[in-house]
């Protein structure tokens, strides 16, 4: 990858990676640090990565870095033992997308990340599996469970009747 391609990767994918991490981790400062670390890492191995694969590389590296940060902060919530009782609160937001983003924050981190990759970036299950290191079946399960949880949030907060 050339320097020009690297700069293109910064311009083209920087916001994408940032908002993926931001919505996953819900902390703008940490998201900024994670994305900067990701691009620093990309710059160190700029000659080894093809431009065609750089987007998934960025997401994968940023995701793994985010997992490290979460584990370091002991904030990781185990999906299997996640308590969804806090999911449903009164939400009078009028914009469905904003309500969905508020609902997204109530999901476990793994479900949140795979749904973001699916909806924001349009990645396939296989690509999401490569980025996150999960199996394809796990990715599907997380996405479908996440969608059901989002729908339940909308119904129980009276956004949907």
């Amino acid at each position: 990858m050339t320097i020009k391609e690297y700069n293109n990767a910064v311009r083209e994918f920087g916001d994408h990676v940032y908002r993926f991490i931001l919505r996953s981790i819900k902390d703008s400062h940490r998201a900024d640090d994670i994305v900067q670390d990701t691009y620093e890492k990309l710059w160190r191995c700029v000659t080894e990565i093809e431009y065609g694969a750089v987007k998934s590389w960025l997401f994968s590296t940023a995701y793994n870095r985010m997992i490290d940060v979460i584990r370091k902060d002991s904030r990781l919530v185990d999906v299997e033992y996640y308590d969804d009782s806090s999911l449903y609160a009164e939400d009078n937001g009028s914009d469905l997308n904003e309500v969905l983003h508020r609902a997204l924050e109530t999901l476990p981190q793994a479900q949140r990340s795979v749904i973001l990759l699916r909806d924001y970036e349009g990645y396939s299950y296989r690509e999401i599996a490569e980025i996150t290191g999960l199996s394809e079946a796990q990715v599907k399960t997380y996405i479908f469970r996440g969608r059901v949880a989002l729908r339940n949030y909308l119904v129980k907060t009276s956004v949907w009747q």
Partner: protein
Amino acid sequence: MEFPRLTPSGDSLPSGRRLFRRPEELTDDQFDLLAAAWADDSLRGDSLAETEEALAASPERRIRAESFRKIRLSPLNDRWEGRNRMLKAAPAAYAMRRTLIVTLTVAATLAAMVILGPLVTKSGTRSAAPAVAETEKVDEAITIAEAQTMSEALIAEASPVIRTLPAEGITLVKQQNNIDASVTSSSPDAISEEWAGSRTPESHTSDAVIVTMHDFAGELPILAAAPEASRLAPVELKAVNPVEAAERDRNWIVRGVSMLARAITKEPESVDGYLIANACIRGVNRVLGWEMELEQEKNNEGEPLTTNFSSSLLTFSAPVKKTYP
């Protein structure tokens, strides 16, 4: 050799018929997961066919399944503020920036040399005065009479040569307060008298007296042969051209830049060192954002008196060296 094989018996599950399920029997939670997959277009083959069959059988479930298609997140207006910090300069831009920095550094150095050059020259001239005075203290042990006696003896030995010494063109140069006073002597005796007279304590007080002998030194064996000749140093006789001397005294950088400027601008006037330094400093200030100042104080007649320089690292005020009387 053949081994005996077991053959399955004809037993069958008695309640097997009751275990069969139909799509309508899916619970809501099961259906939601299936509907989420259907809405995500991830069902293929038999799975898709069965789900379509279930949706066709129940309009309520179709509506419920259709609702999953609306659960799609769109990116909000999240902008990464640190994006520009991660952009890297291309090699050409990097090299150009580096060249610019080097050029500016050289310009700043030149400006400093132009500014400090006259100051250094002036301080060097000042430091020469005590050295000459010290030499004169040593020479005071030699009386004028002894010097004259010795000179007469030496003149007697080398009289044929000295008599042929051309009177014209020999110039005794006394440099006092940066003002050249030329005295043309008509004979070697006059030179001796003049020199002896100038070495009296009354004739030179605090100012340095520099007698130079240059072009005619080889024609003066009296001075070359005399053991005290070294005590007369620095001695140099030369023909003085005031314009050339003034040009030589100018800072070599200023001369070089002036020549370059004349070659470029085709203008006969030389570039003033102050103008060059001021332009350099302004350029550095503009590019690097520094706040260096250079200003020149002038008297009522418009003649420069002092040059003042101030920056965060260095501040000084240097009197302007007047090269031309």
